[in-house]
């Protein structure tokens, strides 16, 4: 029973991780950019949600779409005005640039909100399913996270924009010849990445404390999920997130919760060396 409880915890956690990483994975896969801003964008979304709830009493579920839209606009703007100019340059340049932007956003968040942890407390209690306790806020978070991830999957598969993004990911030169405006697709993709980060932030605000101390942790989780699941595909991020969630809660059970993070990183390093395309990744995209 204890094992089953750990597994359930892991799957719930994994759903949240999938949502956390899917935007990051998409940006990496399509733009070939490691977006070091991702962690801060999540926390930023969390702050907007928290203050909407705290100051105006707006329920996080209502705030979520607004936060997502705002973050999309922010992401689109950042990509059009800055990252598009260096998108084809070496890794060091693009990574350093997004790191620099991350430092700026992080700094302004710590100055204006301070690092004090805040949290939206909904007090939903816990479900009891045959002796296994599932906190309702986490379950709600997971359902929302999976729902958003599923929506993104549908957008990528069914819409014109989604197909254009996939085309650019496969071969940007050929896509440009087919009349796709690549720089706009880049901006839209980065916007979607930011949108997913913002939505994740809104969901996490209901489950975890919102604090700038967590930006690095979230970014680290996104790395690990991407390496496990492979890049740029929604199902990859989903699988990677759930695998990481289960591994972390098993490791937390076995070695103590403070080592769960270490296990995730060690797993990532091993996978990087042994199988850099991810467990279910597609060859040829490394």
């Amino acid at each position, binding site marked *: 029973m204890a094992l089953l409880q750990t597994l359930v915890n892991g799957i719930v956690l994994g759903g949240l991780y999938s949502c956390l990483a899917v935007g990051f994975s998409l940006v*990496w896969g399509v733009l*070939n950019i*490691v977006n070091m801003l991702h962690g801060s964008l999540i926390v930023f979304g969390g702050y907007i949600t928290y203050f909407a709830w705290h100051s105006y009493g707006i329920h996080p579920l209502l705030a979520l779409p607004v936060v997502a839209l705002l973050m999309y606009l922010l992401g689109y703007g950042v990509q059009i005005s*800055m990252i598009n*100019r*260096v998108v084809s340059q*070496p*890794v*060091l*340049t693009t*990574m*350093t*640039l997004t*790191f*620099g*932007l*991350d*430092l*700026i956003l*992080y*700094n*302004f968040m*710590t*100055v204006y909100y301070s690092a004090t942890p805040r949290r939206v407390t909904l007090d939903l209690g816990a479900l009891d399913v045959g002796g296994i306790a599932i906190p309702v806020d986490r379950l709600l978070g997971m359902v929302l996270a999976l729902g958003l991830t599923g929506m993104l999957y549908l957008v990528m598969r069914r819409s014109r924009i989604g197909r254009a993004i996939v085309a650019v990911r496969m071969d940007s030169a050929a896509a440009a010849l087919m009349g796709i405006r690549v720089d706009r697709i880049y901006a839209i993709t980065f916007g979607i990445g930011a949108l997913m980060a913002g939505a994740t932030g809104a969901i996490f605000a209901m489950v975890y404390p919102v604090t700038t101390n967590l930006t*690095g942790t979230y970014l*680290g989780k996104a*790395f690990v999920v991407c*390496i496990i699941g492979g890049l740029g595909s929604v199902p990859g991020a989903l699988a990677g997130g759930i695998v990481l969630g289960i591994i972390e809660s098993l490791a937390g059970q076995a070695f103590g919760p*403070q*080592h769960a*993070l*270490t296990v995730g*990183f*060690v797993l*990532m*390093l091993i996978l*990087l*060396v042994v199988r*850099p395309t991810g467990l279910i990744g597609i060859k040829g995209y*490394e």
Partner: protein
Amino acid sequence: MMARWQQYALFAAWLIVLASTPLWASNYVVRLAITIAMFTALTLSWNFIGGFAGYPSFSTAAFFGLGCYVGALSQRSGVPMVLAWAIATLFVGAFAAALGAIILRLRGHYFAIGSIGVVEVVRLVISSWGSLTGGGDGLNLPLLSGGPDAVARIFLLVMILIMLAAFLVTVAVDRGPLGFGLRCIQQNEDAANMVGVDPTRYKIIAYTLSALFCGTVGASYASWTGYIDPTESFSILMSIKVPVMCLLGGPGTVLGAVIGTAAFTLLEEIFWANFLDYNRAILGAVIVILIFFLPGGLLAISYRDVVARLASLIGRHKAAA
């Protein structure tokens, strides 16, 4: 680009300026000189892998922090200070060689993320291995006797010597076959392999060189401050600052790392005094400006160009008047 002898002369002059600070400047400036010498050594080290070979390594903080801890632990178990620094240097070098053999198989983003992952893993291991490392509480070290001024002078000299050693190795690499091979790898690794450069061997040597002096700097930094903890020693900010300093000066050159570090540290110091809360944002702004306006670093600016442009601006101004 300056001639070689001009670059060496400039470096020698800068070394003398730094070393002579206790004679003409306040303690504050001496501390600043120590910081500059320390970061110059780190930046010159990063230049081997990041500048010459073009590999986006963010593992400086792992090497520095490991140097801090190995040095501190050796000193605490009774090893004399200087010997402890040597042990830290060799240990970190060996660690980097072993690690390099594994993660240098990765390229591009994967290598970059792997190198960040290394910093995190080493930090987590050090902070959870409480029985050996004191965990999050950190470690205390005996301070040198003789008062803060004398101690600062000693460590200024130590850091300058490390910086000089790193510079001499850089010159040797720059002029020797290793530098040639690394530049080939930076241009095109597969082609380098084809014409007989062994990329694996060259990259491992460069990665090890990029770690060696970080170990020495870390160990002597620990002896200087007398206290280390995991958060300070393995700061991801250091891992980004050092490459930014090198990019600011001009990566893959002999003098770029030196100029970039000096410019960055002085800039930071000016802003630091006035906007204490915004130091991260300022670093971020420096990065953005660097990438958009100085893509090749300060050394790549053609001064004739700047002068000509200024002259034409003034000319236009006069014509308009």
